[in-house]
């Protein structure tokens, strides 16, 4: 049984926030747990016990309950704790167990919030411009307690769909909402469902693609860990609409917490009759099972995913036939992304017109993004489609930290591209990003500043695609290999003008000739950086210089005579004993012994180490 206060334990699964005066919401998303959320919860429990706060007494009406909630978005500030008294919420950041007694005594008992530990303006900015539809639940429901999901209207959408609509009507609502697949390609969900419904055969399957592998992306993980029931509910509705009685969630084995919470949520849903036979007495059956991936990025591609479920290895196949006609074990199969499913219950509940009022005409609704890299507020965000990159990075993300300047934003992972500073006013939706040579992808947004070398970034993504290519088709298997070699040459100062021509020619060939999306889009990071940052490539080639001072072969580490205090910290830290100098004397780096690992630069407290 999960930890909880005595009041919570007594009422078991159905702990109801309205039964206590003060709700203490602690983030137990992965960021929260890594930052010590469980210790913070234990500290709150101990304090609640010590002050006897699990029940209210007359002279002191403040019974407390602890609610564990999923990702609250701003993981960099974890552990985040909300103290809620009715509608009044005070949020604390970077909470440590040692701070808990003060919070209880001064704030909950004394009525005086502890100002110095509260979240600041940045936190407000981070949230102010967002529009939270899906994430609203994530920071509010306890992912291991279905009761808290019911309280925010959970499974009402499924009930309405199964009892008040025919499958065709459900498909019609989803089609009219113009919900587009959130897994990358943006295909209209309703159209796909209709095709699967129309397909011949009684046995049909529904698959949820939770193989999230785009580097820099963690939207699906946050949803599965923070609000697993919204995904399950979306699948119950979709299963009913297309006529599938069996569904699978294909989730990465590397997401242990997501798997655990899903398993728990399945058990709860079965217990409440929301999965299994005759759901809501509608006569509709639907069973769900987990399939674990095993660390192959290509298995996120729909046909590869299916093949990975069917037999052993995940290799994509040529389309057509589309999976709607022939998918899992040759049966009609509908496959959607986690976030796509999570949108469905809300659309049913609030209607297609409401949904279309959010976002843009061609891309309605909101989109989750994981904002990472060189940005102040890294974390998970949800914004209406059509918001500009600048608004996202500067207003929500708080801009680039440490006084550096923004250089580019990478969207769409290894299939996407880098969008330069000049184009930051581009609205983010499927069409606009594609026009710039990038893609929406599943929602990873990696911010890069002046210290990021675009050639290095391109090489980085190509290495990823090379390692993840399934090896079936030549353009992808060999194309990625050759591209990596060319990029390595450039990074090492061995590049020639011919290298650039070959990269471009090869990129076009791969786009045209690859079997699946992986190979087709693998050149994007190279082509888009060549398009917008050609000067950086040229600096590497003609001047043998890395403008961002990243490429190891083209830089040297030096010690500033003025700033060095002779503290010997760098000398001790250097794994290659390349630094010499006595205590209180100037230190010197032996360039022949130096492998340019940069550890000295990290450990120096006087900024005396610099790159040249």
């Amino acid at each position, binding site marked *: 049984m999960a930890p909880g206060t005595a009041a919570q334990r007594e009422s078991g699964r159905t702990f109801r926030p309205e039964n206590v005066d003060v709700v203490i919401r602690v983030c137990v998303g*992965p*960021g929260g*747990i*890594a*930052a010590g959320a469980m210790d913070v919860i234990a500290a709150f429990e101990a304090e609640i016990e010590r002050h006897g706060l699990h029940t209210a007494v007359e002279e002191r009406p403040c019974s407390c309950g602890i609610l564990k909630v999923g990702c609250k978005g701003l*993981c*960099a500030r*974890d552990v985040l704790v909300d103290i809620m008294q009715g509608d009044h919420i005070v949020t604390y950041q970077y909470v440590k167990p040692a701070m808990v007694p003060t919070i209880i005594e001064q704030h909950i008992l004394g009525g005086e919030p502890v100002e110095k530990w509260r979240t600041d303006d940045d936190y407000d900015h981070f949230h102010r411009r967002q529009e939270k539809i899906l994430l609203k639940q994530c920071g509010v429901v306890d992912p291991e307690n279905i009761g808290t999901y019911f309280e925010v209207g959970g499974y009402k959408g499924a009930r309405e769909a199964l009892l008040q609509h025919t499958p065709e009507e459900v498909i019609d609502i989803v089609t009219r909402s113009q919900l587009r697949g959130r897994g990358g390609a943006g295909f209209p969900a309703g159209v796909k469902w209709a095709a699967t419904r129309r397909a011949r055969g009684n046995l049909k399957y529904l698959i949820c693609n939770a193989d*999230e*592998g785009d*580097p*820099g*992306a*963690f939207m*699906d*993980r*946050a949803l599965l860990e923070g609000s697993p029931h919204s995904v399950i509910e979306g699948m119950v509705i979709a299963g009913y609409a297309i006529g599938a009685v069996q569904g699978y969630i294909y989730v990465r*084995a*590397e997401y*242990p*917490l997501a798997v655990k919470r899903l398993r728990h949520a399945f058990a709860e849903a079965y217990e409440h009759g929301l999965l299994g036979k005759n759901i809501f007495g509608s006569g509709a059956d639907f069973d769900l099972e987990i*399939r*674990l*991936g*095993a*660390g*192959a990025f290509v298995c996120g591609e729909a046909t590869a995913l299916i093949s*990975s479920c*069917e*037999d*052993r*290895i*995940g290799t994509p196949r040529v389309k057509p036939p589309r999976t709607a006609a022939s998918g899992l*074990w040759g049966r009609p199969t509908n496959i959607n992304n986690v976030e796509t499913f999570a949108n469905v219950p809300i659309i049913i509940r609030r209607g297609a017109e409401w949904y279309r009022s959010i976002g843009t005409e061609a891309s309605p609704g909101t989109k989750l993004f*994981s*904002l*990472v*890299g*060189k940005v102040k507020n*890294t*974390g*998970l965000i949800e914004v209406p489609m059509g918001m500009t990159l600048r608004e996202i990075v500067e207003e929500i993300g708080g801009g680039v930290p440490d006084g550096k300047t923004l250089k580019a934003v*990478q969207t769409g992972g290894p299939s996407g591209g880098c969008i330069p500073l000049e184009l930051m006013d581009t609205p983010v939706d499927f069409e606009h990003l594609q026009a710039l040579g990038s893609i929406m992808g599943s929602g*990873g947004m*990696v911010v*890069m500043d002046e210290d*990021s070398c675009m050639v290095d970034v391109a090489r*980085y*993504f190509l290495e*990823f695609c090379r390692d*993840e290519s*399934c090896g079936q088709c030549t353009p992808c298997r060999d194309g990625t290999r050759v591209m990596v070699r060319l990029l390595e040459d450039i990074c090492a100062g061995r590049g020639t003008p011919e290298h650039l021509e070959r990269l471009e020619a090869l990129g076009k060939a791969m786009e045209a000739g690859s079997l699946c999306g992986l190979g087709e889009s693998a050149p994007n990071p190279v082509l888009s950086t060549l398009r917008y940052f050609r000067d950086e490539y040229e600096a590497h080639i003609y001047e043998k210089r890395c403008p961002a001072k990243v490429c190891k072969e083209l830089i040297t580490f030096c010690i500033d005579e003025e700033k060095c205090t002779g503290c010997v910290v760098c000398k001790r*830290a250097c*794994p*290659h004993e390349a630094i010499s100098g006595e205590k209180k004397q100037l230190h010197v780096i032996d360039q022949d012994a130096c492998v340019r*690992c*940069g*550890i000295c630069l*990290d*450990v120096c407290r006087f900024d005396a180490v610099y790159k040249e």
Partner: protein
Amino acid sequence: MAYELPKEMQEKLKEVVGHYPDPMSAILPGLHMVMEHRGWVDGEACDHVAEVINVPPIHVYEAMTFYTYFPRKPVGKYNLQFCHNIACHLRGAQDLIAYLDEKHGIREGEVTVDGLFSLTKVECLGACGNAPMMLVRDKYHEDLTVEKLDELIENWKKEAGNGHK
């Protein structure tokens, strides 16, 4: 003695076969069971899985080598699954990986002599907000620095010394 899953896991795996129209679909679940039980997979384990679910062993080998999730050699008690993907890369993961090797002798594909540590480089684990990070025994360790690594490793050494399982 050749490797085998414990009897109850074998039974469970046989039951899994029944979930699917084709026993081949049980190959991955079978390999995951071996991982759960022992933490790594080799030819013997493949033969065993093949026998339990009754498919030709070659298909199980094929799966083992296709996916990166299955280490093919024993791993340390603490297998550091270190993310070297883009967000972690931008925030210095490669330097930390080098540091683990230089300072602690922990490097990819090897187990330290005391049997405690090994390292696997993995792709993005979806914790990029707090990069660089690693996953160890199902726990995320984020915002890593040289000092933090030293501390974690010290703690694990102590934990192991105290006979912690």
